[in-house]
């Protein structure tokens, strides 16, 4: 009998995810789609605004990762004022880097401790009443407390570099508007344990060790769940090293062969296209040389560790070598290994903060530079969830006349669809009853990609996921909400 399942908590007009699974008459998955109602109005909203407002305005795209948009927007308007990434003053570049790595640290900590740990520590089939962060806190209180403090540390780094935690104005066209005072620096380096940078490195290592221990005991599940080959894309440093803030655009295929060979991201339009599909508001980016069907790709932690050649901090590099050895040096296509990669990045971010805080350039006084005015600016960086593209055109009156944003989650649109399809195929299809654990596995697949579904905060609402199951004729048979 064909069925339709829907998971949905409180429905909202935007920023929610909807999974529709179609089963045929024999109970096999004939189609599955992960719909994301993405709000694209922001690209129109910024038009007509002065370009220098972009780095502040774009932060309102997202209540969770505003810093990524702030810095990508700043990189784009840097080009408008004629200051390329290599032209920033050392103080400006390093302040932005510290801001960026601070937000990576807090974002990755939030994701692991708040979202993933319930599944890993309590199991995907645990009673929903306890399979949440409170369940983790009751069973592993120290871990939950650490997660909150790690998040807070990253937020304080952001506040010190951006001026405030929310809607910071730190990055401005051509530079930065403040440096880091010696007092601020010392509060992060010498603060009472555990609230200092060195301690954060230790906790990040401990979180990674926790995952590795779990992985050892549950290899079949972690390795097999939603594993499928793909291309991978990210920025890499000129020497091939992992870099979240700036680099060249690189993509590799499922075997690790380069498809986009370390190009200047100012030329991104030659390499990346965006396909529109009738059933989703969100576009599907693809690598042009491979075409729409074969050109989809993964971004984010797993993709970054598949594209880079090394990690330029010692503890994370050691972990990277273990990670690469696990797949014999070939790209890793296992969706749940996003968590492993994310925790290696958490460690790397902690190491970078710990090192960068000691750099005297952060106390420098040359904050802004100027160059020759241009009519267009493109800024790319690696956000926690993946490669983020900001592209603006500006008229002679300094107004933005065109804006194109490809947010990280959009890049992962096709991979998330495939992950959901995998779950539908392997877990839901052919079952006589749909259990809570089965539905949770749909969420697990999506959680691995840490999607950024909302470009706004909520008015007393929740973030809904809706799953629908339809018969061969498309009739709704069942629907659940979470």
């Amino acid at each position, binding site marked *: 009998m064909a069925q339709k399942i829907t998971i949905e908590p409180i429905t909202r007009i935007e920023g929610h995810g909807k999974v529709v699974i179609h089963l045929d008459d024999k109970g096999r998955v004939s189609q599955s789609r992960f719909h994301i109602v993405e709000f694209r109005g922001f690209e129109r909203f910024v038009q007509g605004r002065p370009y220098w407002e972009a780095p502040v305005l774009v932060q*309102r795209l997202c209540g969770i990762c505003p810093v990524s948009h702030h810095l990508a927007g700043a990189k784009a308007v840097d080009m408008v004022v004629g200051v390329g990434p290599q032209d920033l003053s050392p103080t400006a570049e390093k302040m932005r880097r510290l801001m960026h790595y601070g937000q990576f640290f807090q974002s990755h900590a939030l994701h692991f401790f708040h979202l993933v740990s319930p599944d890993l520590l309590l199991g995907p089939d645990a009673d929903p009443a306890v399979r949440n*962060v409170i369940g983790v*806190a009751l069973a592993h209180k120290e871990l939950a407390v650490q997660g*909150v403090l790690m998040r807070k540390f990253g937020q304080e780094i952001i506040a010190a570099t951006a001026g405030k935690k929310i809607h910071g104005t730190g990055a401005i066209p051509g530079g930065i508007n403040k440096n880091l005072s010696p007092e601020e620096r010392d509060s992060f380096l010498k603060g009472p344990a555990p609230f200092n940078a060195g301690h954060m490195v230790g906790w990040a290592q401990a979180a990674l060790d926790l995952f590795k221990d779990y992985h050892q005991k549950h290899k079949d599940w972690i390795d097999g769940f939603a594993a499928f080959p793909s291309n991978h894309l990210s920025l890499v440093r000129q020497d091939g090293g992992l870099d979240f803030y700036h680099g060249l655009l690189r993509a590799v295929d499922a075997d690790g062969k380069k498809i986009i060979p370390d190009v200047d991201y100012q030329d991104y339009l030659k390499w990346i296209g965006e396909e529109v599909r009738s059933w989703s508001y969100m576009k599907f980016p693809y690598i042009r040389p491979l075409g729409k069907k074969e050109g989809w790709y993964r971004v984010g932690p797993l993709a970054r560790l598949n594209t880079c050649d090394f990690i330029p901090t010692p503890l994370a590099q050691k972990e990277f070598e273990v990670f690469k050895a696990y797949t014999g040096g070939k790209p890793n296509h296992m969706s749940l290994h996003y968590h492993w990669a994310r925790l290696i990045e958490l460690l790397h971010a902690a190491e970078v903060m710990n090192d960068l805080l000691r750099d005297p350039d952060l106390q420098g006084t040359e904050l802004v530079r100027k160059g020759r005015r241009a009519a267009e600016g493109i800024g790319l960086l690696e956000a926690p969830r993946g490669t983020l593209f900001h592209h603006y055109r500006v008229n002679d009156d300094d107004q933005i006349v065109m804006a194109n944003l490809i947010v990280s989650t959009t890049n992962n649109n096709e991979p998330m669809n495939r992950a959901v399809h995998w779950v539908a195929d392997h877990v839901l299809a052919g079952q006589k009853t749909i259990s809570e654990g089965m539905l949770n596995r749909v969420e697990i697949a999506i959680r691995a990609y840490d999607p950024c579904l909302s470009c*706004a905060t909520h*008015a007393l609402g*929740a973030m809904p996921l809706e799953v629908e199951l339809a018969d061969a004729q498309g009739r709704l048979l069942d629907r659940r909400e979470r």
Partner: protein
Amino acid sequence: MICGVGNPGRGDDGIGPALVSRLEKERKAEPGLKAGSELSVEIRLQLNVEDALTFSQFDRVVVVDASRSAEPPFSFTPLESAPGVSFSTHALSAGAVLAWCRTLYGKSPDAYILAVRGAAWELGEKLSREAEENFGRALEFLKEYLEGRPPQIDN
């Protein structure tokens, strides 16, 4: 602590931060305003897990947020602890923060939610006319509440 939550770039979703900002401005202009020295104000685009640590530091917390469904002009109700996890880090309710606060830090502040009815949620930085009216009435209520008027609890 009074905590205004919302996005000022999304029309009436910015009611919470706007109301708390106005309260803070008036408090600074009127040093004699009761509870001034005992009151802390915060603004959040979105509540996050670290806010559990913030909540734990206060005896009483009022979260001010816009609402699509509250009876106009506003409702003032106890905040219920609501543990839960989403598939996304973009969802943490005030109730979930309260649950974290209790579980992690053993603290149970008196917690309330002032839900101000909004009408327009599109991109934009101004409140709608309806929201402006509700905003004004909610602000007066909040000031009276801080002056010691017992809270009216909606059923």
